[in-house]
């Protein structure tokens, strides 16, 4: 059971890392940039919030299956395939919340920063500093969306014991088998992890700002 829990954390944690690397800059650029089709791109990000995990699973499955365009990589039914699917699910959450947060502060912040001698990059960091709590919330939402997700990991991971079985797929399987005790135990662990991760992120947003944003 421990390896299932650790695999869940590994897959969803990696997916969140990828989603952050893509989603935080993407949301910032969509909030601050001035370029053609910005509105359209923003709408697509918001629409991504409603993306059903099974549809993402299907797309990644078709991409990575033996006969798919990336079939030669032999990634189907492996943890990297699960990370890819979950990253696609989490990225719209991270990007959309980042975008809304960055937009919620006017351009005056950057003007003020530049007026005190900030370079454009320093001005941007001082802008992000003002919404750091919401940026943490963006990460929490992204993690929440993937740690609890079952459809995509089931389709691209295959729920192989010892290789791609994670907490959500294990709960589905054990429930079908009638092992309700094990299913309930896994469900409890899942809830505890979700709670703990959010508590850590919240504490980070309150106290860790000095480390995240050098003052």
């Amino acid at each position, binding site marked *: 059971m421990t390896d299932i829990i650790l695999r869940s954390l590994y897959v969803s944690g990696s997916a969140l890392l990828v989603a952050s690397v893509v989603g935080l800059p993407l949301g910032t650029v969509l909030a601050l940039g001035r370029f053609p089709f910005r509105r359209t791109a923003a709408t697509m990000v918001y629409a991504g919030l409603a993306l059903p995990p099974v549809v993402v699973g299907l797309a990644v499955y078709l991409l990575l299956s033996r006969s798919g365009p990336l079939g030669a990589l032999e990634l189907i039914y492996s943890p990297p395939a699960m990370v890819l699917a979950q990253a696609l699910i989490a990225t719209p959450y991270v990007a959309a919340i980042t975008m809304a947060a960055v937009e919620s502060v006017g351009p005056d912040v950057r*003007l003020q920063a530049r*007026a*005190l*001698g*900030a*370079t454009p990059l320093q001005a941007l960091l*001082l802008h992000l500093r*003002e919404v750091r709590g919401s940026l943490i919330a963006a990460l929490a939402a992204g993690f929440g969306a993937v740690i609890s997700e079952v459809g995509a990991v089931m389709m691209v991971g295959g729920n192989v014991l010892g290789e791609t079985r994670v907490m959500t797929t294990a709960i589905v399987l054990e429930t079908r088998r009638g092992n309700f005790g094990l299913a309930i135990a896994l469900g409890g662990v899942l809830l505890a992890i979700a709670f703990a991760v959010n508590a850590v992120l919240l504490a980070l947003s309150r106290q860790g700002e000095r480390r995240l944003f050098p*003052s």
Partner: protein
Amino acid sequence: MAGQRPTTAPEPRELLSAGELDVRYQGRQILDVPLLTLHEGELLAVLGPNGAGKSTLMRVMALLEKPAAGWVRFRDCTGVAAERELRRSAAVVFQRSHLWAASVEYNVAVGLRLRRTDRNETASRVRRACSALGIESLLERDVGDLSGGEAQRVALARALVLEPEVLFLDEPTANLDAEVRASLREDLARLARSTTRGTLLITHDRAEAFYLADRVAVLKNGRMIQVGTPSDLYENPTDSYIAEITGAELTLSGRVVGREENLLVVESGGVRLLTLGTAPNGANVRLAYRPEDLILADAPRESSARNRFEATVTEVRPVGGLFRVRLDGPPEVLAVITRSSAEGLGVRPGARFTVHVKATALHAFPS
């Protein structure tokens, strides 16, 4: 050259200047300034009504906004080099300053941290700037808990702590109560002079401009209509707006009927008045005058005042120790006289007097 001594009072040296400025928003020109120079050691006020383009002018001169055309020069540099130099050596205080959601100390230190100033030096300079503005006790306070006046003092401390060569102040007291404004204004001018090499103050408050500044540049509809010392503007306004903001009345109007020496002859209410100004014959003009320049006498008398006419008192109103006296000749005018002369002359509604006024106390502006 070394060893050479200055023999006369030095010419004012340029610190920051801008010229041929043309700023447009959506094709509409909102700023057209041929030249504006901030001199070394000077507090220059840019005065004008709301919407005149003052804040835009400041952002352009602070190189925070690019004009459609024009140049800004700082330390003999223009363009990107000037921007780099100015970012390092200037600070701006806005009307609504953005304070970062943190302590007062963080906010005052932010500019020094951007410049990677040593930690100990930062701490001591922050403390010094805060005590100069009387907010030392607020250092640990969260900015969300500050009053408007305190917040603006934090914004000023944050700018002054940088010991900027050029300080830009955009209506720094406009959002504050009258009482807070008065106390901040005093500190502001004193600190600006002692800390910086030059200050550009944007204001729509004429008292602030005339009281604090060495020179005042008056901006109206995006154009610089006059630049000069407060007494220049008071004595020789080039525009009816400037006459008005320096305390002149603009109730008199008339028509130019001729010229005498360097003066205009203006007919107003059947009376011929000699005035300063430039306007062609036949032009309709408004006459600016200061009520305190009108002299009332019970009969025409010898005086250097070249204009005199008979008028009847229609209203007398005490204002402090003075009296505002409205008279109608025609023309209708307003005079301000002391309590003792009002009593000596027997000024009351219905009384008739001769009004004397110097030609140089009247300014004609095309209406």
